[in-house]
Every structure is written in structure tokens, then in C-alpha cells.
């Protein structure tokens, strides 16, 4: 009778204990090691005083070589600015895009600044910082448009075969019909808007910036309609480095240095 009366509480208790056991990490030693490592990293994420930055130098204007063999670009300057903010020396390590994450895994670099777009897959290979730039697509127009729906029933200029082409064709299946105006180059698509041939163009942000610099009297709306945030990659588990990079990026934004870099290069 006693068991029947209190048995359900006993079972419930056992169940709770079992659930509690499930929350214990499978390898206690490993967890302790990780905590120790994390504490050590928190103390000094760059114990050598040097930050090795993996950079893909084939990506102008983000990073590229001059004819004299000097590596320059937005991400080169960003690496130096981050290092100054963190208080370490910087060593730039040129790495081809395909080898970036292996270079991180093999401990040849500490971080990657290489036009990495944040996505779930990269999140499994590295820790990712907060964004430092959005290389997405802008809907350039003088109509007050700021979204896909605004294009319905009108026309849209873009570069044939590029990312904007893919997005435009995708939009054509999602909203009311609109006229697609494929041009050979992004500049031609923007010319079409500036000259009143098309109401809007879909163009990548850095191409828009370059075009607007060449046409300073033209001031269209340039809302982002597709985001491609660039982030810094840090070795998985090196959370202290990621935190330090995030802090430095925030500081660069706060002090206006990031905007200066963007305006200089992009």
C-alpha cells in the first residue's frame, strides 16, 4: 500500500535524477581541460604579443597586391587597426581562399580576415565575430523603394549572370511580374537608373559605392535588400580571441575609424 501511495513520487524522483544525469557532459576530463584552456585564454588571448592574420590577397578592394608586390586593401588596414586596438603586433599571412580554414586548424594563423560571409557551415569550422561590413545587394532607385515587393509590376536592371541576376530571377517567381533588364556590367545597370531607363537596379554594395564616387551629383536611395555580412573567423574554441576581436570591432565603429576605412576603400 505504501508503495502504491508514494511509488509515483519515487518514480518521478528517479526520473528527475536520470534527467539530471543527462545534463552532465560526456567527458568530464575534457570539460575541465576546456575550462582551464578558456581561463588561460581569457588571461591573454595573444600570449606571444603577435596576432597572425590570414588574408586572401586576391580580393580587391578588400585585399590585393599592388604591381610592386605590396599587399593593400580594406582588410589589410582593418587588420592593422584591430591589432592596434587590441595592443598586439600584426603579421599578415597571405592564404588562398581554399586554404583559409585549414590554416586556422593547422595553427598557421590566429584569425581570418578574408571576406568571410557568416553562415551556418562556417560556424561549425570556426568561431565568427560580429560583422565588420555588409557586402550585400542594394536596390538603387529614386522611387523610395526599399524591398522586393516594390519592384512588382515595374522593371529591374541588373548584371547578367551575377549574384543580382540570381536574386532577380528568384524575385520573378515570388512577386507579380516585372520586366527584367539584364546588362553586361553593374555600371550599365546603374547607368540605366541614373538615365531614367529603369526605375531601379540591383547591384552589389561595393560596386554601388564605386559608381557613386564617379557620379557625385547623383544621390539615389540605396537600401540593402540582401545582406552578406563579412566577419572575422577565429579558431573553434578560442572564444577569448573572438571576444577581443569583437571588442576591437565595436571600438573601431565607436571611434569612427571603421567608417573612415570603409569610405577609403569601398
Amino acid at each position, binding site marked *: 500500500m505504501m508503495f502504491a501511495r508514494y511509488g509515483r513520487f519515487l518514480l518521478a524522483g528517479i526520473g528527475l535524477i536520470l534527467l539530471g544525469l543527462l545534463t552532465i557532459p560526456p567527458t568530464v576530463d575534457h570539460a575541465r581541460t576546456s575550462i582551464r584552456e578558456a581561463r588561460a585564454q581569457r588571461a591573454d588571448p595573444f600570449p606571444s604579443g603577435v596576432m597572425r592574420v590570414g588574408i586572401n*590577397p586576391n580580393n580587391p578592394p578588400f585585399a590585393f597586391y599592388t604591381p610592386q608586390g605590396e599587399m593593400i586593401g580594406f582588410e589589410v588596414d582593418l587588420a592593422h587597426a584591430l591589432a592596434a586596438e587590441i595592443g598586439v603586433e600584426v603579421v599578415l599571412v597571405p592564404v588562398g581562399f581554399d586554404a583559409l580554414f585549414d590554416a586556422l586548424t593547422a595553427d598557421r594563423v590566429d584569425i581570418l580576415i578574408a*571576406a568571410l560571409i557568416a553562415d551556418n557551415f562556417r560556424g561549425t569550422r570556426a568561431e565568427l565575430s560580429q560583422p565588420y561590413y555588409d557586402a550585400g545587394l542594394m536596390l538603387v532607385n529614386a522611387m523610395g523603394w526599399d524591398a522586393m515587393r516594390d519592384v512588382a509590376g515595374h522593371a529591374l536592371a541588373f*548584371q547578367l549572370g*551575377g549574384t543580382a*541576376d540570381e536574386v532577380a530571377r528568384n524575385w520573378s517567381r515570388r512577386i507579380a511580374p516585372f520586366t527584367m533588364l*539584364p546588362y553586361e556590367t553593374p555600371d550599365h545597370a546603374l547607368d540605366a537608373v541614373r538615365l531614367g531607363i529603369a526605375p531601379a537596379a540591383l547591384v552589389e554594395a*561595393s560596386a554601388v559605392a564605386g559608381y557613386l564616387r564617379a557620379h557625385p551629383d547623383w544621390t539615389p536611395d540605396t537600401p540593402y535588400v540582401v545582406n*552578406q555580412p563579412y566577419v572575422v573567423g577565429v579558431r573553434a574554441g578560442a572564444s577569448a580571441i573572438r571576444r577581443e576581436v569583437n571588442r576591437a570591432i565595436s571600438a573601431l565603429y565607436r571611434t569612427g575609424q571603421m567608417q573612415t576605412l570603409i569610405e577609403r576603400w569601398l
Partner: protein
Amino acid sequence: MIDAMRFVSSWLFRLGCVALTVALLTPAPFRFVTAPPQTLITENPHVCVHTDLIHEVDEWKIERSLSLVREMGASTIVEFFPWAYVESERGVYDWRQADRIVHHARNQDVTIIARMGLVPDWARPDDSTLNTLPPESDRYFAEFVAAFAARYAGIIDHIIIWNEPNLAFEWGFADFSPERYADLLRVVYPHARRGNPDVVVLAGALAPTLEPEDSTNGLNDLLYLERMYQAGAADYFDGLAVHTYGFNQPADAPPAPSALNFRRAELLYAIMAEHGDAHKPVYITESGWNDSPRWTYGVQPSARIAHTLDAFRIVADDWEQARRLCLWIFRHPTPRNSYRDHYTLVTPEFQIKPIYYAVQAYALGAEADGVPLWLPAPQEVR
């Protein structure tokens, strides 16, 4: 005692009901129905594409990809069959994904060239990259290649050993010398032939690069091939896999040792001929142009289309030794979110790019209709 037993049996019954309900809630396994067998139609069988089906989760996407490959008029695909995926546990082979790909390729009447690489955890040091192959694991890799060759004998008769061995990261930043690669070929070749006596072992697949002798990143492909021969590799491959990209030069740009362009393949072939291998076939297993707006080596999408078609014509008309020209890469299962997306012919969402239709027209022998793909440049009104 009886009460306790009743109580326990009552609870067991309830738990059984819950378990049964949960089991019934589990969706039935997805049943995939294969389309009827298809027949390839092409006027230019040297048209080939490199695919990325091994990373495809959904079977219908494998079928859809291969259907699009066939409809484009490509006779052949190059596909990666990583050792690490098939033999993640030593001696235990999981062929399910490879079987799926082979099944659908045959159903679409498309031939496969298989690329072998990537090392399972048990065959490499801790904390090393998937490309790390210690010499002591060469024989395990060779056993895998033999098992693969035997399983697909008569279906897959071309196997590429390793990928771009002249790059450091393709070896996990360990020894990437031509001598190391020659040693690997020496171990693998007899195993592959034992698995399938008719298999054509393709070596090379060298990355086109100008890296000098003392570089830690890689080695110039011409120097690498020369040293492969000096290391005695000639007896351990039946044909050369070639990677030749156009970068930002047109297809007919003249080759030169200091230039990276499509016709650099001719320099590799000249080295083969110097070493008495002119009779061996060449398979261009990676090629193409990239239309990323930012990559240093990218071109406009319009130029990419024009250069690609010119490359196919060069292979057909001038390169007798070349059996296939395989474009990198048909489609990725997910976006790469980098310049690599600009090599594809079809997006992850199966949206077909303009270059697909251009290659299709060429492969099927269709005459260009003369209609430009893009609008003329807008003109200022003065």
C-alpha cells in the same frame, strides 16, 4: 507484494502505450522513386562537368542534378568519393552515398570519373586536417582505392589519385613534394589495378600555380610534373588529370611558363611527351572561368560564357590527346558564400544560370541564334 506487482505492471503498460504512440508518430522513411532510365544526347561528348553530389543530403537533388547534367549534353562527370566518408571506421565500408550517385548517374546515362582523397580520423594524427596523409597510411588508402575500383569495375573505370598534390594544404601542410606524391602513386597503383584490371589511373590534377621551389604554400605545376617523372612516377599512372583554368585571360591566350591560363595544359603535355608519355590520354578534370565581381582572377559573366565555349572548341579541334573537358563546378548543395559560387552553372536552389544554356547549345550542336544575352549599354542623352 501483489499490489507492488500490479502497480509496476500498470506503469509498464502505460509506458508501453506512450512508446507505441511515439513510434507511430515517427514519419515513415522517405521512399524515393527513380525516374525511368534516360539516354544521353550530345554532339560533343568531351563536354563534362565536375559535380558535388557526395555532399548532397536529399536523393532527389542527386537525381535532379544528374538530370540537368544530361540535359545539358555532358557525357561525363567528375565526382569526389572521399575515403574519410566511406571508411570512417577501419575496414568497415559505407558505400550508401556512393551507390546512390552511381545508380543515378547510370540511370541518366552519364559516365563517372572518380576522385579519391580525404583521410579518415583513424589514419591520421589527432588535430590534423582531413588532407593529412602520413606515409604509413598510404597502404590503407591504397586498400580503399582497391575496394572502390573493385566495387565499381565496369561502371567507373577512371580514378584520380589525390587532388592538387602540389599544394601544401592538400597534404595538411605536411610534405607535399613530387617525390612524396610519386611514392603514394607507387603504393596505390598496383592496388587499383588489382581491384579493377581495366581501371585507368589518373595522376596529377595539379593546381595551376607559379609558386617557387622554396614556397611553403605549394610548387609550380610544371616543376612538379617534371620532378614527378624524375622520381619515377611514370610507371604508376595511365593518364594525366589536368586542372587548367582561364583566370582572366581568354581561352586562346598563348601558354608560357610564367602565365596562368587555359592553354597552360599544353606545357604539361609537352613535359609528358618529353618523358615518352605522349601516348597517355589527358583528362581535363577541372577548368573554367569565374565571374565573381571581386576575385582578382574573375571576369565578367559575359566573358565567362564566351571563353568557356572557346575552350570547348579548342579541345575539340586542337587537343587530340584530351578526352574530356570538365567544368568546375556544376552546382554546390549549399552556397559557398564566396567567389566559389561564381564557378557554378546551377545554383543550390537549382536556378539555372545563363552559362548553362550556352554550354547546352554547344553540346547539342545548336547554332547560336545571334540574339545577345544582355541589353546594350545605356547611352547619355546629349
